């Protein structure tokens, strides 16, 4: 997971660790140089003392010299240091000291007061060279000491500077970690706020407490919300207008036709009935078109989802559909049980109305239509309408929820929009529409709408 926090911690932590490594190396070097300096200083002191002795004694043939004790730099040295010396004349003749060291003295002889490391008899020696002025000739004095005590001294010096370094580094890392956590907290809060923002209300996000760095992001989100809202509002206005412009003339027409029908003689009335029927169909179709358009989310993002009692919708529908059922001598029945879903009552009422319309149209004369709702043991809420009309042929079954697609029996009235509306409204509620048919007898079908089981932390049924 590429979180911003991880990126920041990596970007700061890795260079800091590299810096620690470099600083450790530097510390070690400093410790080594310091140990060298002290050691060289001591060697120098010995060399100077020796040189003074030599000069006083005049550099005779038998010089008896004792190399003075050199204070060890540390008592931790595993092996005591060995010391050796050589006095070499400019001519290269060994005047005194260890003959094996003549080569070292010679090579160092070009300079005065120089120090260098040299391998001698398989051991590492630190050599101090010193120019001695003997009465007869010029000579070079080389004093060498093994480096065991010097090397042993490096670690303690190094360690002394290492601990503060490490402490400083980890303190810095801790501060960075805390700082990153703390500075990123507004982002986490903002993220949670965006996640909790309800989809339906299209309110802009608050700019309160938004860090400057993410302000452009929030502003673009708000811009988007604003655009959506604006689009929704203009769609709403368009629909309201269209609705008014379509419904007003239809009302004029239908009212006048109905009034006229009452005054007509039997003969004229015969011709008039199809006219009135056409006007009613036109009204019905207009209503369905408007409902279908409005039930789509992009046309109307503002539906408020509230707990809706399906049983109450069923009871309400009884009054509305009884006469239509009686006209076909259909036994219309209801089986309302407890069923509450988050939804839009208006849309769900239209869904039920279209299912009942459909069932009454396709049920045979003197048939049966039953609407039920209830909550299953699993917690699933369902609404279904059953009729004893013929089953829908398998070849059209898949397409019946498409707009303007109708069953094979086109002799029945209908717009081909009813089931499309059912499908659209069900989708809006996250519900599934099932068609359960009795294929063995070829008679009887149920349209069942199954609503999603409410989950914990479930914000919206349509989410």
């Amino acid at each position, binding site marked *: 997971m590429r979180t911003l926090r991880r990126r920041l911690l990596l970007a700061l932590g890795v260079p800091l660790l590299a810096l620690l490594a470099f600083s450790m190396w530097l510390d070690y070097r400093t410790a080594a140089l310091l140990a060298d300096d002290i050691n060289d200083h001591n060697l120098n002191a010995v060399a100077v003392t020796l040189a003074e002795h030599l000069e006083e004694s005049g550099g005779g043939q038998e010089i008896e010299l004792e190399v003075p004790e050199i204070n060890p730099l540390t008592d931790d040295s595993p092996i005591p240091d060995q010391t050796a010396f050589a006095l070499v004349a400019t001519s290269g003749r060994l005047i005194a000291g260890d003959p094996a060291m003549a080569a070292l003295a010679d090579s160092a002889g070009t300079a005065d007061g120089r120090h260098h490391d040299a391998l001698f008899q398989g051991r590492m020696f630190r050599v101090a060279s010193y120019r001695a002025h003997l009465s007869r000739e010029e000579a070079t004095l080389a004093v060498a000491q093994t480096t065991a005590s010097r090397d042993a001294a490096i670690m303690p010096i190094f360690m002394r500077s290492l601990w503060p370094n490490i402490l400083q580094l980890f303190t810095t890392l801790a501060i960075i970690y805390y700082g990153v956590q703390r500075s990123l907290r507004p982002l986490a809060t903002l993220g949670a706020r965006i996640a909790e923002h309800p989809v339906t209300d299209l309110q802009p996000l608050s700019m309160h407490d938004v860090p400057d760095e993410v302000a452009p992001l929030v502003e673009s989100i708000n811009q988007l919300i604003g655009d959506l809202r604006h689009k929704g509002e203009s769609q709403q206005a368009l629909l*309201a207008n269209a609705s008014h412009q379509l419904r*007003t003339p*239809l*009302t004029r027409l*239908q009212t*006048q036709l109905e009034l006229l029908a009452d005054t007509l003689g039997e003969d004229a009335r015969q011709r008039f009935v199809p006219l009135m029927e056409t006007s009613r169909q036109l009204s019905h179709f207009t209503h369905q078109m408007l409902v279908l358009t409005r039930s789509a989310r992009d046309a109307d993002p503002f539906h408020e989802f509230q707990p809706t009692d399906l049983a109450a919708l*069923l009871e309400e529908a009884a009054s509305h559909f*009884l006469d239509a059922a009686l006209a076909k*001598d259909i036994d*219309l029945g209801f089986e309302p049980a407890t069923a509450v879903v988050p939804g839009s009552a208006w849309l769900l009422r239209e869904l039920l109305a279209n299912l009942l319309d459909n069932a009454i149209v396709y049920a045979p004369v003197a048939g049966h239509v039953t609407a039920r709702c209830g909550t299953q043991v699993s917690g699933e809420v369902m609404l279904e309408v059953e009729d004893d009309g013929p089953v829908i042929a398998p070849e059209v079954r898949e397409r019946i929820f498409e707009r303007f697609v109708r069953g094979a029996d086109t002799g029945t009235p209908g717009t081909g929009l009813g089931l499309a509306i059912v499908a659209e409204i069900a989708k809006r509620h996250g519900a599934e529409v099932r068609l359960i048919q009795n294929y063995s007898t070829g008679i009887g079908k149920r349209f069942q709408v199954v609503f999603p089981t409410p989950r914990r932390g479930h914000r919206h049924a349509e989410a």
Partner: protein
Amino acid sequence: MRILLVEDDPIIAMGLREGLLRERMQVDHVVAAEPAEQALLLTAYDLAIVDIGLPAMDGLELIRRVRRAEVRIPIMILTARDALDDRIVGLDIGADDYLVKPFPLPELLARIRALIRRGCFAAGSELTYGRLSLNLATRQAMFAEQALELSGREWAVLEHLMLAAPRVMLKNKLVESLSSWDSELTANAVEIYVSRLRTKLSACGMHIRTVRGVGYRLEESERAS
């Protein structure tokens, strides 16, 4: 019956007016909310039909205002907008029923009759449906010119059915309200009262239809099959 019709479309208004006149109702027609407000405050109408989409002040605001002024008559809303909000807001602010345009004229008339019936009941005078009437003061049930003998429970059932008509009276609501009226009552007991009432009413050309699983509807026998 005197009705105020508030509708700005002249052709619709003309049609509704004629339909109402044929029902022997008096109709005053205004085309805007402002004169309607005055008329409702000054005249005792039995009912008002209000179109929501009016030119200046809209129908909802009109209803809000007259309800605030304690005008208690039944109000029927007509709307050409299909947005649910209008209807809900309408009923919340004190309208009694609504119809979305276009509607069958007979449906409007039936709903208006039901509203007026409920208005009379609320006023405590008389409850009538078809040729059946309940005198709420004398507790006398009459069909045409004949008196009907009803028990207390039968009266209560009939009262509820007449108030609900032409809608379906929910059985569970009936059980509920009869129970609170006296002691606890079972659904079976209600069925028995309905059955007795059905027998008494059949002689008067009235019919109680059972709507499977939901309740009952009172019908005039011409409508009964």
